[in-house]
C-alpha cells in the first residue's frame, strides 16, 4: 500500500513544480515525470494495458509539447502580477477541495473495489463470462472492443475530429474571395 502513497506524493510534487516553476522546459519535463509516475501507478494498480498506453502517449505528448511550443517562446516566464485574483482563486479552490475530501468517505475504502460490493455490477459478468462470450482473454480488450465497442467508435472519432481540427487550424490560408479557387 505504501507504494501508492509514495507514488502519489511524488506525482503531487512533480505537479507542483510543473505548475510553479518559471522555466517552461522544466515544467514540461515535470509533466513527463508526472506521466511516468502515473504509468507506474497503473502498473501497481494491475492495469498493464493502461500502463503501456500511458507511457507511449506520454512520450508522444512530450514530443508534441517540446517540439511545437518550447523552442518558440522565451522559456522563462515572468511572474503573475494579479495578486488579488490569484488569492481569490486559491481560496475558492481550497474550499472546493475541503468540501470534496469529505466526499471520499462515502466511497468504498481504497483496495476494496466497488464492483465487488454491488452484486449486479456489470464488471462481475465481464470477468466471469468475458472469455467465453467474446473469445478475448484480455478482458479489458473484450470490454473496449465488444461490450462497449460503441464507446471505442466514439473514441476513434474523437481522435479523428481532433486531427481534422488540427489540420484545419494549421492550414496556410483560411479566407479567400468567393470566386477564387480553393487552394
Amino acid at each position: 500500500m505504501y507504494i501508492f502513497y509514495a507514488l502519489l506524493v511524488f506525482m503531487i510534487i512533480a505537479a507542483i513544480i510543473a505548475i510553479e516553476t518559471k522555466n517552461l522546459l522544466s515544467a514540461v519535463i515535470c509533466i513527463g515525470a508526472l506521466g511516468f509516475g502515473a504509468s507506474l501507478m497503473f502498473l501497481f494498480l494491475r492495469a498493464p494495458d493502461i500502463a503501456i498506453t500511458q507511457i507511449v502517449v506520454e512520450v508522444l505528448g512530450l514530443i508534441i509539447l517540446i517540439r511545437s511550443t518550447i523552442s518558440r517562446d522565451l522559456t522563462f516566464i515572468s511572474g503573475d502580477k494579479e495578486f488579488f485574483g490569484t488569492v481569490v482563486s486559491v481560496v475558492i479552490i481550497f474550499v472546493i477541495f475541503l468540501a470534496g475530501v469529505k466526499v471520499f468517505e462515502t466511497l468504498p475504502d481504497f483496495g476494496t473495489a466497488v464492483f465487488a460490493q454491488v452484486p449486479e455490477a456489470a464488471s462481475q459478468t465481464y470477468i466471469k463470462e468475458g472469455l467465453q462470450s467474446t473469445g478475448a482473454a484480455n478482458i479489458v480488450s473484450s470490454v473496449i472492443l465488444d461490450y462497449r465497442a460503441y464507446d471505442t467508435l466514439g473514441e476513434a472519432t474523437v481522435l479523428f475530429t481532433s486531427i481534422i481540427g488540427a489540420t484545419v487550424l494549421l492550414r496556410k490560408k483560411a479566407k479567400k474571395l468567393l470566386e477564387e479557387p480553393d487552394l
Partner: protein
Amino acid sequence: MPYALCFLLFMLGLYCAVVKKNMVKIVIGIMVMEYAVNLFLVMLGFRVGGIAPIIDRAQYDPVMRQVAAGFVSSSVDPLPQALVLTSIVISLGSLALMISICIRTYEKYGTFDITQIRRLKG
C-alpha cells in the same frame, strides 16, 4: 486517503488552468486534471492483492468453458480500465488540438502570454 490525494492533484490542475497566464501552463494544468481523473477511475477498481484482468491458460477450463474461481475473486475491475483507455485517447486528441490552437495563436500574436492576447473585450 489515496482518493483525497488524487483529488488534490485534480485541484492543483484546476488552479493552474485558472490562474496561470501562459498558454503552455494552462495546457499543462488541463493535462494534470486529466491525469488525476484517470488515476481516480483506475483506483476505484483496485483490489488489495488483486491481479490484472487478463486470463491465462492456467485459469481457464476449456472443457467446462469456465474461468477459475480464483481469478473471479481476485481480478481487479476491468470496466474503469476500459474507460480510462478511452479517456487517455480523448485527452491526447484534445492536447493535439489545443497545441495547434496555441501555435497558430503564437504565429499571430508572437507570444504565449494571454494578458497580451486581448483583442476581444470582456
